[in-house]
């Protein structure tokens, strides 16, 4: 595993933002996550690959504590999220932004209002209820949209945008939230290749420019190499591969997916 956060004194060592250690979870007697451990460093993009059912979504939901994991630790900037509850957990969660496969935008709100949803925790309650965030917040939200190339669509209603545009609005929302980590759960699996490329480019840019740690699950092998600094392979709830993104290829991909990737068995 690259750059352990504990190497004190080495200034160039990248900062570990998120540390997942021994994360284990089961649904009934089916073990979905089996001792998953890895570190995410500031400004790096880590792709996570693995067949459907390997536990990727469960992993993401355990990291954000949407599911309480059966065992293991999730350390965000050194704090163990699994030990937090209620308001403390809510506050700690702000540092994690989630980007979902289904975008999860409020359909009837404009793009900029959806970005402002990332600011909910910091805005006074009356401003939220009146939906009047104030001019400076609005300008900051438009700036976030600009980062993903959508400043021109700020006033468009979310359900009028294309899938790729909606996903980039979701990234802008995470930016507005000023997260330290973005977890993207198959953000491009329902997008066409050109829209997918734009979404991944936006994720890459926020990692490089804002020092956000990005963990992104992907299916397409071709997309990993140009996008991710590192690749994790997840199979049956275990990390079975951990390597540099540039070295990831069809062969390693096949190893993670088993024979299905080569067409020996039809995908379900």
């Amino acid at each position: 595993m690259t750059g352990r956060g504990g190497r004190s004194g080495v200034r160039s060592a990248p900062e570990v933002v998120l540390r997942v250690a021994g994360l284990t979870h089961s649904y009934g007697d089916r073990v979905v996550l089996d001792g998953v451990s890895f570190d995410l460093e500031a400004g790096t993009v880590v792709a996570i690959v693995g067949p459907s059912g390997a536990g990727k979504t469960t992993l993401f939901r355990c990291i954000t504590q949407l599911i309480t994991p059966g065992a293991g630790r999730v350390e965000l900037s050194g704090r163990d999220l699994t030990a937090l509850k209620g308001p403390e957990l809510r506050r700690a969660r702000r540092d994690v932004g989630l980007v979902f496969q289904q975008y999860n935008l409020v359909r009837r709100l404009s793009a900029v209002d959806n970005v402002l949803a990332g600011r909910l925790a910091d805005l006074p309650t009356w401003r939220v209820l009146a939906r009047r965030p104030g001019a400076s917040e609005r300008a900051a939200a438009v700036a976030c949209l600009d980062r993903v190339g959508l400043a021109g669509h700020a006033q468009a209603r979310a359900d009028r945008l294309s899938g790729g545009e909606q996903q980039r609005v979701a990234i802008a929302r995470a930016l507005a939230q000023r997260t330290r980590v973005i977890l993207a759960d198959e953000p491009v699996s329902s997008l066409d290749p050109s829209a997918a490329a734009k979404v991944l480019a936006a994720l890459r840019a926020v990692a490089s420019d804002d020092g956000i740690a990005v963990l992104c699950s992907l299916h397409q092998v071709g997309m990993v190499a140009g996008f991710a600094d590192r690749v994790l392979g997840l199979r049956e709830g275990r990390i079975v591969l951990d390597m540099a993104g540039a070295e990831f290829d069809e062969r390693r991909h096949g190893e993670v997916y088993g024979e299905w990737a080569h067409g020996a068995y039809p995908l379900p």
Partner: protein
Amino acid sequence: MAALPEALWGGAAQAGPGPEPAKAGPPRRRPRWRRWLYLAVVVAVYVVSWRLADVDLPRLARGLSTMFGWAAKAWPPSTRELPLILERAGETVAIAVIGTTLATVIAAAICVPAARNLTPSPWVRLPSRLLLNTLRGVDSFVFALLFVAAVGLGPFAGMLGVAFHSSGSIGKLFAETLEGLPAGPLEAAELTGASRLKTVSYALVPDAMPGLASVALYMFEFNIRSSIVLGVVGAGGIGQQLKNSIELLDFPRLLTIVLVILAMVTFVDQLSGRLRKHLA
């Protein structure tokens, strides 16, 4: 070879070579006598109900001829008291407007604790549901009777009756509307670390709004009709005039009232129906 995919695929593969689902046996024959029993029960229910409801067709025939006599006497409708009647009709609309609005406010407060997706805890949800069902279960007519006794005769009692009963109906429909919304946007907003009030109002209400408004309008149409009846228990509005005219056997005046009611109901239904279509 065969063992490999199973090991890799975990649970998904188990469905394939796993044990066959239990075969459904041959269709079970229901004994013939059971069918005759059911039929006998249904027939018995109708016979008893017919007796209890005191159905008497000859009496209906006699009554109908009396009513036709009234109808003949009702023409032409009397316009002498039209201003008063219109004023009372306005009172009825006012009962429905204020009553439905108050009911919507009450319902908005109770629907969130009553919605399964927003309130997972049954300790909060079930009492909320019970409250809504109780309010809905007591008719606005009954509530109006109580309020006439409490605050006196007049439209105020009627308005309160409408508000209390329909807050239950609106609250239940509101809760069902909220339960039908996708969970994703709310979940995304919750991960920003904001409070429940903020996330629900910001991420859920905008998408819920058309559905909620449609429910409120629908109940307004319903409440116009129930406000008319409320006059009968002394809760004001055009219903009271209707009752007076019947008791005084003043049929031309009665006909005027009926025509005003028809016009009023038709107009409100059309208007509200159009608004609801616009929202959809």
